[in-house]
């Protein structure tokens, strides 16, 4: 038994060097090859065009008759007879090293700035492996972002995956940059390492992030994986995987706290749809493949903390909701996987409020265990709950006011309107470079609540009212 095992293993090693010349069919990023030796599913492929240029690909489907390879760097310029394929015999890997911080890489983790990359410290499969749920450590360390509406109401926790649901033209990049700049864990002096994955975004956006990191002097602590709008769309599929593979290395081998910013997830999903359609798969909603959920989960679940290891991976994916529709499959499926969401509101943006975060649909699922006594402040949970409840009533009052006019409202409802304005203008709104401590955030929250009569505040305790409420 053992012998035959080794033989097949040896066979594969010998065969893996073999080069095949001539493809049967090329369709978009997919290349079809016949008459090969048995090729493993998911194997790494090197494709050499007639000029000797090497492109990387992966096996998508393998059978006796035909092997389907997807090329990450596109297929333009390939000819059927001139294409050579080398099957490497192992899955796509990334040479990871701490030295990749401070570098600009492409979606496959190769140097983009021309300079040589240092020797890797490890060789990791970019697809990763699922973390055993029993090995996970439940995340509960509060990250102070210095942004009131986040810290107060949608608290970010170290090891969380919290996406920003935005729309075109909204300041999601500013917010992500601000979080990257200001994020800190209180009582710990270690800085975050940042892994940045850009998928199909414009050069200006990448430039904005690079400049912003440079200004705040953290650029040497950032690894950028760029697959820009003019790069082959297929490369976007591998970009977040490369980025997360490096993040896992930094977090769980090097003990760093890593913040992963991925933008724009919508482009990633579009690329998936493109491949799926090319392969003639049965689509589910809006033409997206049925496995979109599992596929996104493979990315988002690569975050968190592992018991007994020092580091953590916090994910901040950014996605633009097509047509601002939160029910679109991309934000919808994302919301089902991530631990909450930060939702932008176009109307708030139009009124000049930054960050234009709509508190009501926004949510942080891990917040409950990361705030309160000993972590932020004892009144935080009740205060947040009360702000949500009161602010949701403001929306009703505003609707009523638009029908019957503000003058006709009861005194109480007018107080609610006043509260709503104060909440949006003073609590939510802040400057791009304003870094508020959590205490300041909570105090502003109480100031807002103090505009309402005390008996309206049913979700805070009497002691808290006594201590913080100032009418």
């Amino acid at each position, binding site marked *: 038994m053992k012998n035959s095992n080794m033989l097949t293993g040896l066979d594969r090693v010998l065969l893996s060097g073999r080069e095949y010349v001539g493809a049967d069919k090329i369709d978009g990023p997919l290349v079809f090859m016949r008459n090969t030796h048995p090729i493993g599913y998911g194997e790494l492929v090197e494709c050499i065009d007639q000029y000797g240029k090497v492109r990387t690909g992966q096996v998508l489907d393998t*059978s006796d008759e035909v092997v389907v390879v997807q090329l990450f760097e596109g297929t333009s310029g390939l000819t059927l007879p001139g294409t050579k394929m080398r099957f490497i015999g192992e899955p796509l890997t990334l040479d990871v090293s701490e030295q990749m911080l401070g570098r600009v890489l492409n979606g496959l983790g190769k140097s983009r700035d021309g300079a040589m990359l240092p020797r890797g410290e490890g060789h990791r499969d970019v*697809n990763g492996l699922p973390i055993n749920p029993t090995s996970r450590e439940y995340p509960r360390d509060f990250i102070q972002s210095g942004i009131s509406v986040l810290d107060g109401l949608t608290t970010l926790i170290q090891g969380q995956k919290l996406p920003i649901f935005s729309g075109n033209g909204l300041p999601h990049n500013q917010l992500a940059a601000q979080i990257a700049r200001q994020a800190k864990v209180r009582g710990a002096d270690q800085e975050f390492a940042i892994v940045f994955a850009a998928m199909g975004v414009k050069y200006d956006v990448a430039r904005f992030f690079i400049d912003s990191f440079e200004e705040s002097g953290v650029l040497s602590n950032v690894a950028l994986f760029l697959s820009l709008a003019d790069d082959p769309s297929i490369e976007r599929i591998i970009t977040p995987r490369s980025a997360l593979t490096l993040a896992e290395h930094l977090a769980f081998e090097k003990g760093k706290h890593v913040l992963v910013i991925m933008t724009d997830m919508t482009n990633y999903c579009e690329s998936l749809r493109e491949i799926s359609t090319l392969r003639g798969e049965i689509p589910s909603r809006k033409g997206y493949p049925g496995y979109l959920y599992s596929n996104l989960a493979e990315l988002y679940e690569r975050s968190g903390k592992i018991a007994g290891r020092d580091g953590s991976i916090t994910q901040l994916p950014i996605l633009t909701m097509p047509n601002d529709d939160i029910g679109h499959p991309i934000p919808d499926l994302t919301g089902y996987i991530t631990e909450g969401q930060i939702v932008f509101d176009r109307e708030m943006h139009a009124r000049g409020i930054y960050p234009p975060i709509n508190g009501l649909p926004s949510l942080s699922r891990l917040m409950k265990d990361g705030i309160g006594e000993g972590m932020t402040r004892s009144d935080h949970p009740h205060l947040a709950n009360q702000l949500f409840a009161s602010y949701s009533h403001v929306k009703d009052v505003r609707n009523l006011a638009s029908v019957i006019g503000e003058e006709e409202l009861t005194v109480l409802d007018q107080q609610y309107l006043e509260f709503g304005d104060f909440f949006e203008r003073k609590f939510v709104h802040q400057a791009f470079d304003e870094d508020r401590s959590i205490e300041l955030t909570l105090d502003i929250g109480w100031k807002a609540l103090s505009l309402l009569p005390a008996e309206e505040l049913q979700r805070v305790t009497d002691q808290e009212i006594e201590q913080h409420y100032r009418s």
Partner: protein
Amino acid sequence: MQERIVGQVKRVNGPVITVKGITDAMMMELVNVGEQRLVGELVKLSGTEAIVQVYEDTTGISPNDNVYGTGMPLSVELGPGIIGTIYDGIQRPLETLRNVGGDYIQRGINRPSLSRENSWMFEPLVTVGDEVTPGSILGQVVETERVLHKILVPPTLFTKGTIVEIAPKGSYSVDRTIAIVEYEGQTFQLTMMQRWPIRVPRPVRERLALHTPLITGQRVIDMMFPLAKGGTVAIPGGFGTGKTMTQHAIARWCDADIIVYIGCGERGNEMTDVLREFPRLIDPRTGRSLMERTVLIANTSNMPVSAREASIYTGITLAEYYRDQGFHVAIMADSTSRWAEALRELSGRMEEMPAEEGFPAYLPTRIAEFYERAGYMKVLNNQEGSVSVIGAVSPPGGDFSEPVTQHTRRFVRCFWALDRSLASARHYPAIGWLESYSEYVNDVAAWWDEHSDGSWRESRSQIMDLLQREVRLQQIVKLVGPDALPDSQNFILEVCSLFKNAFLQQNAFDDIDRYSTVEKQIGMLQLILSYWRLGSEAIKKGVPMVKIRRMKVVQDIARMKFSVDNDDVGELDRIALRLERSLGQLGGMYEE
């Protein structure tokens, strides 16, 4: 031992593998693929080809790799040692895998579901010469402080037999023979462990009518939309509406004997949360840790999709096994939509013709089969046991008209619709009272009336009626403002708002409020109803509503969920007295 090779790989497409050269493979047989021995199940046979659905990542599998047969269908191991364990979708013990393979789940590693090293103190309950039939109890094992595990005769081995040997009281591992049974000249060696194929329901003697509610300690459920023991319920809701929170709350506080919690395609951290929290939480009924009655099945969203499909069946088979011992079991499946999506993904890979939204045409059949495994049963040994199923549904975009929600609705009798606007206002549990329903109300009304001096049915319909009237009034208020309503109608709004805040809403993190006993629930509802009754009378006498609202005792009612301890329900009577007195005084002032 010579392994049986059933065929060779022909094509690999994600988790679906086509196998050629099939000789004697069985339908639904458990197979191992390639030299890594990836676990798979044979789902289709056609000529000399077969389709295998693999429960692990298939990277590296190539054509011509061998496929090995095991000769049995995908089964679970049943015996002592299940409670308190966390398994993956095909019952691999995750903690053991971690000890063997590290923090990541490596491929191709396998360990027995029930540890062969642990031994259990077996106490025989039969003697030599006793006649046993399927389901008979051979003996018992203290599995945890609160679970007295009965060792049963497997259901299908023989129809009747005689004990020829039984092990004395002592410590044995699960694979040691503890009894020898003779039937028609044949002898059978029985151990404490048995296997059962996950896709086949375990046999029972008889299905019984449902009559007892499953008390969850959640007021909106127990009082408004009760679930019966042996019943089925769906919890549909968009993301962030609190499906998982509701499931967790029920898993914590419901009065089932055993909880099977299936995390099907959900978040890894949520399972960690349960793992971290349940051992520390104390069950108010028994004073023991909640983990002592809980089994977890974790197949998180990034774990292989075919194992996700199997996880639901694994869970319900474990539940049926404990039901057969006479326990009342509750299953939480979070979420059945992920399971349906796994079906869709696999069906797509097998190139089957899709029906609605890409789901396979057999989706409703599968949903029905799953929910029909719930029920209140007389089991083979004539005890009574039940399996209740609480299935979360995650409709895309929160739209209940999608296929999974719609089909599930056809096969469940209770529906807890989670409402997005309630969740946005942080009103949890966000179970909407207008769209939800329970067909078990009549089944369990007798039980409730017995526990509430005959008032439950009446009180429930009274408050439901008020809530319905409130909806109509709210429509008017939206147009003209609340001032336009007379006090008598405004008071309906006031009572409903109090009812929502003080009763329906329940804080899962508050030490007192997270769970309410039957007595407290009844007391609270009656108190609110007497506020309505007495308040309306006072308004008829001319007392302005504002005065009634401002009474100190109304604040007491609003906070009773936090202030009145479950053990001190008498406090509610004292509040009722104060209410009566205050309203009496007010009424007196205006009567003159």
